[in-house]
């Protein structure tokens, strides 16, 4: 296995800059997920590592070796494509052994490796079939098997589950997690699905508009999002944002928006870190909005709102609450005892509150 380094990577298509100075270090045996919205440059970055796109600027290193101009086949990487990219005129076995046959590997060695991969992926009974005779999940497993047999230094996954239905996606996600535990390989996995990112990654690289927004463990990026974009992108349902100004009242930091006034505790944002009148966005995840009787009992800063819509999800319920002109989403235990249209009290769990500077969009709270 191997480490991968992206150093100041720039990619331009004519005058359009797709990647603008990407720096990421991926350690040996690490499972890194690159996540971001469509068009953020994550797939381009992966394709550049695979050698399928030229590098406009910067360096890509695999195990310390600069590979910018190296042919894809010489990089010792294997890639699983979004559309599987199985060769339609070859059987499953031929697909899996294609790379080894090209390298004129010994026949017995090829058979052993295909057998091993087929066993891991439960494909032994499908080896003689053509790709068109397989289901989506089976095709995906063949694509992964094709990568495994090569025993590459780095595995690249380009949105491998995006063509599968929700149930199959869940199953394959578990399969991939198990596979990582078994292979203990360096894996770079690209997705736009934050659930995949959160569940699979050892570390997440969050990208937007060709720039790395944050690199960290799933829990880090969830609990301490570096900026407004990460805060809004990671977590489902998405974070509530309230836009307003900070003011200093003695040692206290007060947040005021047209509809909400809050006292920000000093452990979250000390007064010496704040400018009077600083424009900010305060973020609270729906799980950290306390509603109803619980709010009445636990909170000192209570806010009055009107319940607009209830969405029952099974064991949880989404409540859309209007506070003046601001709409807030709260996720609570199922079967909330008020009906839409009724007034409710709510407050926030300050421990998990986030404050972002409006101008820089960066996090300023602890």
């Amino acid at each position, binding site marked *: 296995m191997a480490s991968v380094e992206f150093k100041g990577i720039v990619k331009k298509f004519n005058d359009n800059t797709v990647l603008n100075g990407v720096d990421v270090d991926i350690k040996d045996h690490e499972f890194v997920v690159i996540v971001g919205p469509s068009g953020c440059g994550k797939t381009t970055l992966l394709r550049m590592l695979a050698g399928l796109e030229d590098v406009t600027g910067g360096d890509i290193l695999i195990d310390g070796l600069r590979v910018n101009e190296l*042919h*894809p*086949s010489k990089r010792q*990487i294997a890639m699983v494509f979004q*559309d599987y990219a199985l*060769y339609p005129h070859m059987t499953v076995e031929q697909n899996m052994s*294609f*790379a080894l046959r090209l390298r004129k590997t010994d026949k017995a060695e090829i058979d052993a490796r295909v057998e091993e991969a087929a066993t891991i992926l439960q494909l032994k009974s499908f080896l003689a079939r053509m790709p068109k005779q397989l289901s989506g999940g089976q095709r995906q497993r063949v694509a992964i098997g*094709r990568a495994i047999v090569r025993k590459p230094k780095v595995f690249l996954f380009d949105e491998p589950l995006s063509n599968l239905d929700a149930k199959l996606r869940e199953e394959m996600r578990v399969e991939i997690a198990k596979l990582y535990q078994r292979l203990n390989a360096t894996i770079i996995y690209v997705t736009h699905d934050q659930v995949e990112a959160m569940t699979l990654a050892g570390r997440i690289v969050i990208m937007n508009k060709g720039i790395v927004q944050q690199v960290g463990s799933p829990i880090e990026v969830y609990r301490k999002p570096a900026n407004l974009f990460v805060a809004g992108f990671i977590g489902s349902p998405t974070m509530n944002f309230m836009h307003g100004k900070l003011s200093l009242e003695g040692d206290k930091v007060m947040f005021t928006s047209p509809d909400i006034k809050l006292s920000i505790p000093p452990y979250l944002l000390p007064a010496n870190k704040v400018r009077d009148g600083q424009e900010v966005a305060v973020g609270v995840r729906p799980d950290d909005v306390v509603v109803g009787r619980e709010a009445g009992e636990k909170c000192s800063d209570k806010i009055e709102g009107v319940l607009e819509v209830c969405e029952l999800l099974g064991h949880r319920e989404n409540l859309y609450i209007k506070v003046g002109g601001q709409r807030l989403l709260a996720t609570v235990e199922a079967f909330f005892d008020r009906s839409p249209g009724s007034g409710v009290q709510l407050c926030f769990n300050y421990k998990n509150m986030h404050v972002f500077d409006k101008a820089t969009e960066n996090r300023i709270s602890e």
Partner: protein
Amino acid sequence: MNKERLSIERKKQLKFFLIHAVIIISAAICVYPLLRIFSISLRPGDKLFSTDLSLVPAGATFTAYASLLKDTMFLRWLWNSLIITLATSFIGVSLASTAAYAFSRFRFPGKKAGLILLLSSQMIPAGMLILPLFLMIMKLNLMNTYLGMIIAYSVSSLPFSIWILKGYYDTIPRSLEEAALVDGTSQVGAFWRIILPLSTPALSIAFLFNFTTAWNEYLVARVVLFSAKQYTWTLGLFELQGQYITQWGMFAAGSMLVTIPVLCVFLYSSKWLISGLTLGSVKG
């Protein structure tokens, strides 16, 4: 309920009858001339017209076939045609498959203009190309040679073949070649091992088009070939047409014989041909 079912059944039957009627009539229209030629080839003497409508005429004989093969250079003409046609088809398809790949996969200056130019060359009537082709082949010193004919035929069928192959390559996902590159092939290797095997339907169509065009061509052959020994069958058959008398029996026998190679190629590649004719009609 029953009435409705009855009416649906009737509609189905009517549709079945109409479809088959159209197919049978179309087939009859196609086959009738061939049957007439076959009938003429069996007639004793050199009668073109006859009041006899039977397929096998009275006194039917294979004399025309025998004398065509024995007294003329028909076999030699057939051989010439076969060499020129096969070479044209292979060279044409080889050139078109690589050119179409470049047009389909690479970005280069003049790509769009090149494609439009290729298409517009198909709008020029064949007759207009005779003179420039004649001049080119003469300057290359290739008059009355196989090579001259092969070059003339290959270049004239290239644009169509390039267009049809480019259209097919466009439907093959690029990720297949990229997977092959990652697996260890070169760009040429990916084309050879992945794209070409997947393009068999389009290659068959291009091959058949080249084959039938070259096999049946008369005008260019008339200009380029001038010795009877080098004639293709199209020129050879017209040799049988004299100023005062035309040997219609032999003419018809020759016409029947020349359909055999085309028929064989069509039958052999019919599987590919049918899937090829429906190219691009279904996504994926």
